[in-house]
């Protein structure tokens, strides 16, 4: 029988420390929240990316200035984060489309496809980053 020493503290509230240290999100949960975070990052970056597209197509000098601009390490780092965001959003999105069609909703498959999503998007990011550099 449960007594005061073995019983878990209930009710449990969603405090920040609980979210950070106590509640461990399963892998499909990470895919989901990262899909949201990557989507927000991409939305925030649209203005900047459009600016670069605009300049790069406007003139030869503009193209060269953007080429030098994306050579800056800090710009490359931000681009790499955005490339990851795109790859993750892309892969996780395809996974969600399959879930919508009721494919892969059982727990073992859902966990496996989460891992695949994570690995493939990171591998794609590494490959594209290598191409960029």
């Amino acid at each position, binding site marked *: 029988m449960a007594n005061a020493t073995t019983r878990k503290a209930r009710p449990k509230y969603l405090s920040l420390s609980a979210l950070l240290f106590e509640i461990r999100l399963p892998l499909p949960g990470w895919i989901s929240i990262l899909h949201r975070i990557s*989507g*927000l990052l991409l*939305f925030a970056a*649209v203005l900047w990316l*459009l600016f670069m597209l605009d300049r790069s*197509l*406007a003139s030869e000098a503009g*193209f060269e200035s953007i080429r030098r601009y994306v050579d800056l390490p800090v710009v490359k780092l931000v681009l790499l984060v955005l490339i990851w965001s795109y790859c993750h959003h892309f892969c996780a999105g*395809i996974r969600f*489309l399959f879930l919508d069609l009721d494919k892969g909703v059982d727990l073992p498959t859902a966990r496996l496809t989460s891992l695949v999503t994570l690995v493939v998007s990171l591998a794609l990011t590494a490959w594209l980053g290598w191409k960029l550099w």
Partner: protein
Amino acid sequence: MVERVVTGAHYGLRDWLAQRITAAIMAVYSVILLVVLVGGMPITYPVWKDLFAQGWMRVATLLFAASLAWHAWVGLRDVLMDYVKPAGARLTLEVAVLLALAGYLGWTVQILWR
């Protein structure tokens, strides 16, 4: 009586479906662009300019941009519905997102058909 919130969901399938269809359009465009960028010749200014001078590329990019705007609208609306509870603040942010997306779309047209 059911309380209807002006910044709430529209209880419909349309946005949900639109988000998925626009996702598919953007996915196809992404793969095409990736093949062009990675598979083709090194990107110099003439190559870059010629790519976006072609009719199909302009139309495809416009379709991508329109899909992105619609897709991002649904996504951002979902995020705002989850995290911003006061109706006034949510409406203000929703309007800001819509204005930004409309502006981006207009700018894209201007970039493509200069």
